[in-house]
């Protein structure tokens, strides 16, 4: 069928549209109509729900041994899983500059996510919507998950450390020091295997409230982030115990 369709024709075709067996030209014409017709759109959507339920009737079957491993290997090649672990840490500091614009975008996203997630949980939106937002954020930033931990200072909580596992992985700290004048800190990462990795410097206090850096290791390998003052004393520390939400545990 060519040309435009009316409601009556679309209603006739609705079951085939919902099942996905309508002829291409008919489907295009019907969908053009449905875009501007809420009643027809709702009818097709309702029938699609029934089709979805029908698909769940298919019998389940145990796949052959090793199926899951073979499938996952096609989805995420081994080389990609260890891309960070195989690189020396020192190479990442200068290379990180290339990622600064993306880091800034990701940081703005995480701020938006924090607000959005809170609103979602407090409102009536479902877990699905939250997951959808989370997925969109992760997809935008090429990431796997977020983590957060309090940043402790001499007089209590001094801020929050956010971590992002992705490509690249990064840390972002919001800090509120009572000092009116800014101080320079050396920042250190402590890994699970006890390594102390330099993570650049930070100027905090006064009007300076944030610090961020790309990290050369998987976020799950970071146990501490330390801000060390010029005197050599650790002024602030955050303890991270990030774990991928997708794995077991």
């Amino acid at each position, binding site marked *: 069928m060519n040309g435009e369709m009316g409601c009556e024709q679309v209603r006739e075709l609705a079951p085939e549209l919902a099942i996905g067996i309508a002829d291409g030209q008919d489907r295009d014409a019907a969908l053009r109509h449905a875009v501007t017709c809420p009643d027809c759109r709702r009818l097709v959507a309702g029938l699609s729900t029934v089709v979805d339920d*029908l698909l*769940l009737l298919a019998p389940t079957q145990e796949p052959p041994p090793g199926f899951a491993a073979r499938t996952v290997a096609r989805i995420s090649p081994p080389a990609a899983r260890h891309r960070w672990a195989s690189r020396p840490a020192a190479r990442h500091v200068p290379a990180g500059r290339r990622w600064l614009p993306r880091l800034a975008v990701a940081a703005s996203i995480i701020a938006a996510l924090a607000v959005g997630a809170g609103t979602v949980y407090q409102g009536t939106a479902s877990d699905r919507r939250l997951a*959808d937002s989370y997925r969109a954020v992760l997809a935008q930033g090429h990431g796997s998950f977020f983590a957060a931990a309090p940043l402790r200072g001499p007089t209590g909580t001094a801020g929050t450390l956010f971590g992002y596992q992705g490509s690249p992985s990064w840390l972002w700290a919001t800090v509120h020091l009572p000092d009116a004048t800014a101080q320079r800190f050396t920042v250190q990462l402590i890994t699970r295997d006890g390594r102390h990795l330099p993570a650049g410097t930070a100027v905090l206090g006064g009007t300076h409230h944030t610090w961020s850096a790309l990290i050369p290791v998987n976020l799950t390998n970071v146990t501490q982030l330390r801000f060390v003052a010029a005197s050599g004393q650790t002024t602030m520390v955050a303890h991270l115990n990030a774990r991928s939400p997708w794995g077991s545990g």
Partner: protein
Amino acid sequence: MWTLSDEALLAGLGSGDPEAAAAFVHRFQRRVFGMTLSILRDRQAAEEAAQEAFVRAWRHASTYDPRKGTVAAWLLMIARNVSINMLPSHRSYPVDPEVLLGLQDPGPSQDPGPSQDRDSQLAPVSEPIREALMRLPAEQRRALVLAVFYGYTAREVSEQDGTPVGTVKTRIRAALMRLRSELGVSDER
């Protein structure tokens, strides 16, 4: 492992996280393989189709819209489409939709096919629609199942069953509308 929603796992899959991918595959592999095996009736081809379905889910995870249906249904539709495309000549493929869905005992003299292995199970959530499907007239049920699971068009069902196209269309429409009514599905989503 704590229970993550299907949507959250799909988000992890889409992000390329290997652990999320493993969890997602583990959760849905029996359903997806069951779907592909039911259609293809060949374990090697079914595995290939099931793997391809997961790969497509990974590539297109960002297109999933929770307002349009569940993750399981979205994934099974992908698996169905992959399987149909892999059938060399599915139009003439002998198929008994009643047996496919376990709606009818294949009987001792019939080959039940790989989809009717002893450990075959059906998802508990599907029972209301299974019962509603069973209440449909047999000719309506057959036309609907051929279309939904095998992608047969009304014309193809007509050619296979020797029934006028208009009659097949009417059967599919009547079956789907009756299921919608019996299941109390609203037209809002």
